[in-house]
């Protein structure tokens, strides 16, 4: 079977589901999860292309992306935690105006 097609399909599917998370889910944490999925999909593709072309830079980028994604999740979650300290999940947080408050 054509490896290229397989890899692209899985990566695109993963990316699409990640996008689905961001667009459809209400909670912010779900959005964070969505972002994680999209990063992984990208990583898969990067590693696949690096392996195909035998280019170490690809792998290096994948590694760095992995670390950056980790840092991003940490910051994201801490933001969400600090924001929601004291009041429960109310719709305001969904809107920009709410967050500003």
């Amino acid at each position, binding site marked *: 079977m*054509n*490896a*290229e097609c*397989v*890899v*692209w*399909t*899985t*990566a*695109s*599917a*993963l*990316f*699409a*589901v*990640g*996008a*689905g998370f961001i667009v*459809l*889910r*209400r909670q912010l*944490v*779900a959005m*964070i*999860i969505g972002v*994680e*999925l999209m990063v*992984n999909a990208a*990583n*898969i593709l990067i*590693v*696949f292309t*690096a*392996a195909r072309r*035998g280019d*170490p*830079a690809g*792998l*290096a980028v*994948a*590694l760095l992306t*992995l*670390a*950056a*994604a*980790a*840092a*991003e*999740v*940490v*910051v994201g*979650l*801490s*933001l969400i*935690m*600090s924001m929601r300290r004291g009041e*429960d*999940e109310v*719709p305001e947080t*969904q809107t920009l105006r709410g967050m500003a408050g």
Partner: protein
Amino acid sequence: MTETFAVCGGLAVLFAAAALFQKTLYGAAMCLLGVLLETAVLFILLGSPLLGFLQVLVYAGAVMVLVVIAILASPPKLSGRWAELNVPRPVAWLAPLAAFAGLMAAGQSLGGVHALPQAGPALERAMARLLFGPWALATEAVGVLVLIASLSVLKEDA
């Protein structure tokens, strides 16, 4: 090799879809864990066990812990899991599908390779030399980034 990749890839997508339709966030987090582990397997299949290992170590380990803590700390949510959007429900679903179609179209245009390429240990060694060679700055920068990120977890009043 391509067939096992297809199976593991399919599993990953399944886990992701499951996560999307989970009622509780906790369930979603667990499915995310599944996807991350599958991704690690995919890396290994692609001939880069180091990345697979790091993926498990960094992602599946540290990140998942944080996600789980965040979910547990937040009070149980009663309102529905779906956000109401300006656009009607079916049209909302259109966006992810469109993303999928866009990427697939991009993939088709790049032409195909039949056998699954293997990165191999030599490439990993070359990567290591690269990381700590010309890209030393990038590596250090990522390191510092991760360090600062962890500082952000401290609460103001702590």
